[in-house]
């Protein structure tokens, strides 16, 4: 943990060597993440709701999803950019260290320029929670549960990222897979799942289970349906999915063949 904190401060110091670039990059990344929401706000200002979900209710989903994926982009940058290790043959150097390759990847680097997206997500959450005008009990329950749903989302995102990275053991390049396994599903998770056709819903509640991250608990927390089990499902699903992803990663490492020299 000490090592990780040192890495964190080192990464922050190195980014601060180019303060202006760091600030503008973070700000512009936050801006690009926010633009979809601003456009959605423009739509809902005119048409009130999307299948019974108003702007603040969608904002809650949007904020949770945004914070989860941007935290993944900040802290799991080497897992996300794993294809570099395959294309440039750097993975061999991880295998000969006395620590597991995954631990090395997770502690090697962090990408603080993505933190702007996290701040933007938190801002949307704050605005949405204020706009929802919940009573004290509902607000207390939501605030208590919010960290659980964000951590569950982060674990689901990390698991999807790890599964995609594992594919690189066979395909080398994974950037195009990531659009399919991460960007598109997390974009979909910004909005309520009841707007999607059945086949998309099946995908988002099974093979790419992003629907459990925010939609399932928020349904119950906003009195839109479900029961207390809706609150238990996100952590349960994320832990099971993480277990599957780790097993697949180990399977991938066992089948890794170095290109040699």
């Amino acid at each position: 943990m000490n090592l990780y904190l040192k890495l964190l401060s080192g990464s922050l110091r190195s980014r601060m060597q180019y303060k202006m670039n760091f600030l503008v990059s973070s700000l512009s990344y936050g801006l690009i993440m926010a633009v979809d929401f601003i456009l959605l706000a423009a739509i809902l200002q005119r048409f009130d709701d999307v299948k019974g979900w108003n702007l603040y209710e969608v904002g809650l989903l949007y904020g949770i999803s945004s914070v989860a994926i941007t935290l993944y982009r900040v802290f799991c940058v080497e897992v996300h950019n794993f294809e570099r290790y395959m294309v440039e043959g750097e993975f061999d150097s991880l295998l000969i260290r006395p620590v597991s390759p995954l631990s090395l990847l997770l502690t090697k680097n962090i990408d603080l320029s993505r933190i702007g997206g996290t701040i933007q997500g938190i801002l949307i959450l704050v605005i949405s929670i204020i706009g929802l005008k919940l009573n004290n009990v509902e607000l207390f329950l939501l605030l208590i549960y919010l960290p659980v749903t964000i951590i569950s989302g982060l674990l689901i995102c990390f698991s999807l990222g790890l599964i995609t990275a594992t594919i690189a053991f066979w395909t080398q390049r994974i950037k195009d897979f990531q659009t399919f396994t991460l960007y598109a599903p997390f974009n979909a998770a910004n909005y309520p799942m009841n707007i999607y056709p059945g086949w998309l819903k099946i995908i988002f509640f099974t093979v790419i289970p992003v629907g459990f991250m925010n939609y399932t608990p928020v349904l119950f927390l906003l009195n839109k349906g479900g029961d207390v089990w809706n609150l238990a499902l996100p952590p349960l699903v994320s832990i099971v999915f993480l277990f599957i992803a780790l097993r697949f990663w180990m399977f991938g490492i066992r089948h890794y063949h170095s290109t040699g020299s």
Partner: protein
Amino acid sequence: MVYWILLQKSFMRNMQYKVAHLINNAASAIFGFVFIAIWVGVLQGKENDSPYTALDMTFYIAAVQCILWLSGFLTAGLNIHNGIRNGAISLELARPTNFFLYVTSQEAGRLVYNLFFRFLPIGLVFSLTVGFYIPQHILTYFFLCISILFAMIISINLHYLVGISACWTTEIDWAHFVNFTLLVGLGGQLVPIDLLPTPLSSITPYLPFAGAIYYPVMIFLEKSSSEVILIQLVWVVVLTCFNLWLTEKARHKLEIQGG
């Protein structure tokens, strides 16, 4: 013609990755389905209050998702900034070719590739799932071709502008983010710009971003007159002239060190 050969080579280079690109197309289609679902959900029971029906918006989003591959998803800074970082720009600017055409012809080759392996397959997916609008007037096809060509030139110019700015700023990540955000936000990717709140809906029709996405789509859907091509033409001329001027400025700024 050297620029034609560069275009062909760029097309062939992209052919190496066509399987990965076909997988990516599936994701692009999912983005489209998500946006279509949002609009169908929003317009359910409210079509009378909207200038667009749910079917209109389905066709609109399907067309946008296709055209994004011709005028939205271009190479960041057209890779000019990489040449500035590793010094290759000095050789590229010293070549007896026009640097602007040298860079843009390579991107044009990539866009021609995108036409066959991105635009058409995604269009086919939408045609088979949610349907696709078929223009009723023969002239529409003619104006559509011109509008798409202008949209590509506008977008190439915007990305070139971001790339060449690296001669002064070195880093272009933030400029690319901002350019892309404006392109999709004010270009009408999710919301047709006439539905944006005022004053945005009054200003955006005259900005280049609308010319890159919104106008070709509206011409395709026969919801806009062909006169909007004139707005696109103005931006084509203005941006091209500005970039040529900026390239000359960059050439004068260039310092070659070492020996």
